């Protein structure tokens, strides 16, 4: 029998019991839509996270070996003093240069920030960076995300300018000064020391002394001036007087409450004083994430040959941000669970539809066999019906999912992820996600064929005379 006749026969058989075929299709459409929407939602979250991480810390980072695991609170022991040479080598490398958007140094340091006018101080995690370069990194948007990254206003501001997280601003009682939106000032209990309105009341003696030393060289104190205390390379405390020029919502509350960004030179002055300035990381941002393996291999070779004496290591953004992998895994297992559940439901729905069809058409099967259709022909007939059902169901499910995705993406719905301090737009990436589309549709058609396999086999195995006697 030729393919056209087979297909036409299969289609007509499906149209024979429209209600049943429609019910089966509906199950497939609902299932496929759910899978595609959740898959699109998952993709959007992962692309969003990746974009955020790549904007902040690049695709790859060069760090001193062990810094990532052990050295986070010890920039002095894990500094890279040769960083300028390394960056120059990267920028002039024939293989790396075309891959790299930006290669920029940064210095992470911990310390205590004090707003002594208000009598409050807080731990901070500060990062010293090159504002122009890190702002260029923030513009990375290879996945066309709705980007929440705004450039740091440090570029062009004074050397002592800093940007802090809005949570930190609240803790340092700088909300009003910085006009931070939605910032509730700390409550009465937290305000207790501040009400004394005593200048430098809470600060220890030696810090005050250091602070005074610094202040002597600084312009008169403004209300947004804070002191930052950090441990120097020698282990002694050092203080810098800084101007908070902006508070910025960092998204994740735990970071928002600690974040401070300053000029690299300022950070280096705090840690290394007059000594040799170093950095704790060199971030490399690539044009595309897919270039990571190539860039990584070349970079490793370059460091090995040009800087053999530096104990350096390369870390990718997944390693630097374990949350990415964890979210990926979590969403992946949820996706797997949903897909499996829907797969099983569709499997049984179609299996049931096909079994009923085989039962109803037993006499027909006997007739076709008597006329000379082989067993394989009967099997093919039912598999063809299932394939058609799967194809129609997939097409309808796809259209439905794309339609709903469009509605969701244009609805302006927002959601605040757990641990985040502001809401994100709810978006689903269905249309642009080829692996998801292909995978779901192939999976759906696969499930259809699998569920039709047994009924089709049973139909093919029927004895002709038994089938014909079936009235």
């Amino acid at each position, binding site marked *: *029998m*030729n393919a056209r*006749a087979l297909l036409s*026969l299969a289609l*007509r*058989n499906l*149209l*024979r019991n429209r209600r049943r075929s429609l019910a089966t299709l509906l199950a497939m459409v609902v299932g496929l839509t759910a899978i595609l929407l959740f898959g699109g939602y998952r993709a959007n979250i992962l692309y969003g996270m990746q974009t955020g991480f790549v904007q902040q810390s690049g695709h790859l980072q060069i760090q001193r070996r062990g810094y990532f695991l052990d050295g986070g609170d010890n920039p002095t022991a894990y500094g890279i003093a040769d960083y300028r040479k390394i960056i120059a080598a990267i920028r002039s490398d024939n293989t790396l240069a075309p891959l790299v958007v930006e290669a920029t140094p940064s210095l992470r340091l911990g310390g205590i920030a004090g707003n002594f006018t208000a009598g409050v101080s807080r731990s901070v995690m500060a990062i010293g960076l090159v504002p122009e370069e890190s702002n260029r990194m923030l513009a990375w948007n290879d996945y066309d995300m709705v980007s929440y990254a705004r450039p740091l206003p440090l570029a062009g501001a004074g050397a002592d300018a800093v940007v802090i997280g809005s949570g930190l601003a609240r803790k340092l009682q700088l909300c009003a000064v910085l006009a931070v939106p939605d910032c509730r000032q700390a409550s009465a209990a937290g305000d207790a020391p501040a009400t004394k309105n005593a200048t430098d009341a809470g600060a220890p003696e030696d810090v005050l002394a250091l602070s005074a030393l610094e202040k002597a060289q600084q312009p008169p104190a403004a209300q947004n001036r804070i002191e930052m205390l950090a441990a120097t390379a020698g282990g002694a405390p050092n203080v810098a007087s800084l101007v908070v020029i902006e508070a910025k919502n960092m998204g994740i509350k735990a970071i928002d409450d600690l974040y401070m960004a300053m000029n690299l030179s300022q950070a280096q002055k705090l840690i290394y004083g007059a000594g040799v300035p170093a950095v704790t990381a060199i971030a490399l941002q690539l044009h595309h994430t897919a270039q990571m393996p190539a860039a990584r291999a070349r970079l490793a070779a370059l460091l090995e040959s040009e800087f053999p004496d530096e104990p350096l290591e390369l870390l990718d953004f997944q390693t630097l941000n374990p949350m990415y992998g964890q979210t990926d895994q979590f969403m992946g297992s949820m996706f797997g669970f949903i897909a499996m559940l829907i797969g099983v439901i569709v499997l049984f729905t179609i299996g049931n539809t096909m079994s009923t069809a085989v039962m109803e058409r037993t*006499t*027909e099967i*006997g*007739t*076709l*066999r*008597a*006329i*000379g*259709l*082989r*067993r*394989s*022909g009967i099997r093919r007939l039912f598999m063809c019906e299932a394939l058609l059902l799967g194809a129609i169901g997939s097409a309808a499910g796809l259209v439905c999912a794309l339609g709903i995705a469009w509605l969701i993406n244009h609805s302006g719905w927002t959601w605040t992820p757990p641990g985040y301090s502001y809401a994100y737009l709810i978006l689903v990436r269905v249309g642009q996600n080829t692996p998801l589309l292909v995978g779901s549709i192939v999976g759906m058609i696969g499930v259809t064929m699998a569920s039709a396999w047994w009924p089709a086999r049973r139909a093919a195995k029927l*004895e*002709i*005379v038994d089938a*014909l006697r079936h*009235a």
Partner: protein
Amino acid sequence: MQPVSLRNVSKVYHLDAVEVAALNAVSLDIEAGRFTVISGPSGSGKTTLLNLIGCIDRPDRGEVVVAGQAVQAMTDDALSDFRARHIGFVFQNFNLLPVLSAYENIEYPLLLGKVAPAERRRRVRDLLDAVGLAERGDSRPGQLSGGQRQRVAIARALVHAPALVLADEPTANLDRQTGASIIALMHTLQQERGVSIVVSSHDPHVQAAADASVFIRDGLIVASKEEAAA
């Protein structure tokens, strides 16, 4: 060549504990180009006999030769192809595919035989004409009367020019007059096309049209006779 030759063919059905001997060492030769009628009361073994001749069932014992071929040893696929080439079937319940038009039902055996489209069209039109349904080719079986459906079935059984056409009680679901016209049509076509047709029936009117008759009772052939006309 003899279209059918059975030697000592037996068929036993197993019903739980009971064994029903539907055919008991039956030997039978059917001559070519005849309209043969197998008569016998209900339950006598007519259907079982036709199933064996039609190669849609296998005997427990004995030898079945159809169109010169011993079919015993053939595989299921080979038998399917064999039926598609050499045998046509007409059923008591017409057994047309409800989703296909009369034309497409008749065309179906030609699709199985991979006949070229132009030739298919020619043969289907010829058969539609021959059974008097030239105008009803587009009708679905559901739109046709019982007699018309059986005509379509007859056309389907003949379209691939088989050596042998088997009809198990083709008039049992038709009124007497329609049944008579169906038998007359089959007989005419049998003569025009030189095909061998074997019809089973317990209707004496059908038996009256026969060139050759076989009488069966309790799984045994009790008599057979050739009409003078043959």
